[in-house]
């Protein structure tokens, strides 16, 4: 299984409105323009409800803009079929969700194997790789545990292992260390950063934690669906 190349991502005047033309209309993003080069390490920060998760969903092709365009390597992804977008997600994106989103009916190892199985990785290889990833996130011996048998921190680490399973070019993490203590936070971030460096992956982290944000090389601040600041470290 080969690692996916990190894509060049461009968001052009992206607007995302929930429930348009209804009394409950919410403008989550208001004309976002953003360029992410391969291998970049970004943090996105901002108050709750400012559109961070919506932006992350658009970057990861989980959602489509109401207007504007999301481009991968210069090509608008909105014009691709659902099937092609699913394939891009499977091969190219590793998601770490805020609420873990592990499948409750699968063991930790089966959760990690899930994306590899969809890519038809041979059973022996995916089992070996899942075990290696779980060991890397410090869950050796917990392979057969179900999510309800894991602590919040352990669940988050399984989610990280699952995100790395298909060696994606783009890693998207929504509060990846929210449930972890400081030692585990450092370990997980180190792992993500090492993966990013080894494979020249792009890493986008949404966080409230200044310590986590500080580790990134580019900092984006958001408020009310707009980017207020975009700071690159020298």
């Amino acid at each position: 299984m080969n690692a996916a190349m990190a894509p060049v991502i461009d968001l052009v005047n992206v607007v995302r409105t929930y429930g348009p033309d209804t009394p409950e209309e919410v403008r989550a993003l208001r004309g976002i323009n953003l360029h992410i080069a391969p291998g970049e390490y970004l943090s996105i920060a901002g108050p709750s409800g400012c559109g961070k998760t919506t932006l992350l969903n658009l970057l990861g092709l989980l959602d489509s803009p109401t207007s504007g365009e999301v481009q991968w390597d210069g090509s608008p992804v909105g014009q691709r079929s659902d099937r092609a977008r699913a394939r891009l997600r499977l091969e190219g994106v590793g998601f770490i969700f805020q609420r873990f989103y592990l499948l409750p009916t699968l063991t930790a190892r089966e959760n990690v194997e899930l994306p590899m199985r969809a890519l038809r990785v041979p059973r022996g290889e995916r089992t070996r790789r899942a075990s290696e990833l779980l060991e890397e996130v410090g869950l050796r011996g917990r392979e057969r545990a179900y999510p309800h048998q894991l602590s919040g921190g352990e669940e988050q680490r399984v989610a990280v292992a699952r995100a790395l399973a298909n060696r994606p070019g783009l890693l998207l993490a929504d509060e990846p260390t929210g449930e972890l203590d400081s030692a585990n936070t450092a370990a997980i971030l180190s792992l993500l950063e090492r993966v990013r460096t080894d494979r020249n992956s792009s890493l986008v982290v949404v966080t409230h934690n200044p310590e986590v944000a500080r580790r990134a090389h580019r900092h984006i601040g958001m408020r009310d669906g707009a980017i207020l600041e975009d700071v690159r470290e020298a």
Partner: protein
Amino acid sequence: MIRLRRGRSLRHSRLQVVLAVVAIATAVALPVVLISVGGGVAAHELANIQNAGYQIVVSASGMHGITHAHSYTQRLLAMSGVTAASPVLSVTVDAFNHSGSVTPVLAEGVIPDQFTPTLGPAESGLFPSPLPLGDPTDSVHFANGTYTGPAAYDVLVSSPYAAKFGVLTGGKVLLSPVANRSLGISYNVTGVFGVPPTVLGPTGAFAILLPLSDLQAMSGLAGGASTTPDAADTIQIAVTGSVATNPTALNNLRADVQELFPYYGVSSLSQEAEQLQAASGVLTGFYLALSSVGLTVGLLFLALVLLRRVEADRRSIGIRRALGIPARSIAGEIVGDGAVLALTGAVAGVVCGYLIVEALAEWASAAVQEAARLAVFDPVLLSELVAGVVGLSLLAGAVATRAALRAEISEALR
């Protein structure tokens, strides 16, 4: 692993799953019972027809409607291809045995040397050969329709009758067309014949066989101003092997016989077999149509179970889609779950149907027991039934899949 995961997802809502399986099993068991028993009885009757020793039968509407049976027999025997023509008259008479008890019996009057060749292979071993009924041609007593010749007064009794009333060969039995001993005629019991298996129950097993002219005279069907002369119910015609195995020749002979008896019904047993098969096919279709109501309810229940499962697993499905799991893979799991449930229900239904038939054969009333014992479980038909149920479950799965994949991923994850 897929199987493991599917098993877990099905356990998710165990009660609904059990109810869906029970609904489908019930819906499948009904046609299994109806088709297997109905098909078995039809197959049995078909085998009886195909194993008969005669190939053409002449019959008349109404009881004892054929007249001049002896003379028509002679005319039929003169036709090319005919090897035997056996008129049969069936009348219920009262039999008084030596112990003084009386019971109704089915008396069949036949011409002995014509009757034996019309027996099929399954029946021929049940009768003594030649039939010990005096005059083989029944012409002496008949005496050209005057019935003035000496009668033999010989009779064969069925083995169930002989066993029930202790009647032995060499004994006597008094026969009367009405329940009046003083009008009875004493007959010599010259032998016992076996009774083939029947679905009619034991009443048809009390039977006697005697010369046609004797029965005609005893029952008032010999002739006269107010009665049918020389009556019979049917004339069974056996043909040569070359005619029997050639449908065209058999049909031509049937047409010739029909020409001889334009006012009687003439049919070949192959026609009757075809009619029986057609009727059996219609009945099978009717049973399936009847059962489709139950199947529809079962499958609607299955669709509801799948829809509820999709609703309960909304987030899990959203997670899979977010990870990039192909929609067809998610659809495959939902449809597969439905197919597993339907297959389980259908197989359970077939097993239940089989057990019901076995129970009927063991504990039901005599006639139902006989029918149930003839049940045939056609593996092809049962497989088609199961496949049909599974096929329809795919539709239910498709409905649930559509619901599962309709929501946006970000919505499903909320």
